[in-house]
């Protein structure tokens, strides 16, 4: 009888441990062609461009579902901006990229200052310390670009962002 109880307890402990110690997986998640477009006109000084995005982490991880507690960390490792505008980024002093959701705080994830002239592609400095896992647990995220414009411009500003996040999950 005692042996049966002892075995059952051991089995329960093993079962709970095996469910807790899940295999960790790290993979890259890319957001490509995230298009930022300003209103018709931009003014000298700070302007805000924003877009809404729906992360698809489960699909990228190759699993059917991904629960919130499976997402351990999400860090931006690369941020590149590109434009097909003939003016390049020449009318912009600096660009700061931030991420926010309706349920989590806004976090600064990348910056470029100053912006080099005659360039149609920019590599931003990413914030290696910033973990945006909580934001990626939400259905929708907002990507916000704060751009410091040199002078008034009647044509809208538009550029694309290519972002690479390093995702750590429990499978």
């Amino acid at each position, binding site marked *: 009888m005692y042996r049966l109880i002892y075995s059952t307890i051991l089995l329960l402990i093993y079962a709970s441990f095996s469910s807790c110690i899940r295999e960790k997986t790290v993979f890259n998640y890319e957001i490509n062609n995230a298009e930022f477009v300003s209103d018709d006109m931009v*003014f*000298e*000084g*700070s*302007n*805000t461009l*924003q877009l809404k995005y729906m992360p698809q982490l489960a699909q990228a991880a190759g699993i059917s579902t991904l629960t919130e507690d499976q997402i351990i960390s999400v860090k931006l490792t690369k941020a590149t901006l590109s434009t097909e505008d003939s003016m390049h980024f020449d009318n912009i*002093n*600096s660009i*700061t990229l*931030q991420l*926010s*959701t*309706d349920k989590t*705080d*806004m976090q*600064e994830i990348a*910056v470029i*200052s100053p912006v080099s002239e005659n360039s149609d592609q920019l590599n931003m*400095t*990413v*914030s*290696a*310390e*910033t973990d945006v896992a909580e934001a990626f647990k939400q259905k929708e995220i*907002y990507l*916000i670009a*704060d*751009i*410091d414009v040199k002078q*008034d411009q009647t044509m809208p500003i538009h550029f694309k962002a290519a972002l690479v996040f390093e995702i750590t999950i429990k499978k």
Partner: protein
Amino acid sequence: MLRTLSLLLSLSFFSLDILAQSNPDDLLGLWTAGSGKVHVKIEKVGNKYYGKIVWLKIPIDPITQKPKTDKNNPNESLRNTPLKGCRILKDFESKGEGVWKNGTIYDPENGKTYSCYIKMRDINTLDIRGYIGISAIGRTDVWKRYEPSKDDVKLH
């Protein structure tokens, strides 16, 4: 005496009524901080409110002779972020009756972030209370809505 008192009471009820009817988006726009050193533009992202510095009285760092940056940011990789454009008010949610809560205020002077709530005194005046832990321990700054006619500085 009694007439004055009743007039005051009716006025205070009237102002309370105005705040009760206020639109959460009344917070949007340009504001001048109490010091007059910065102007902040409050915008909405999703259902929350954020404020960023759009004008600095002294935009150039006297040491570097370059535009001021967020040099006290606790996150080293972000210290090159220009101060003009820096979001100092973050994540405010409207609680109705001219109050916005659950946000933070960032002080670029020391790189610290404080809990904060905003109370609209009237359509052109905000009480911005930054605090640590409980709201009783903190400081309130009074911000005024930016009026271009009073200031010839070009702002956008």
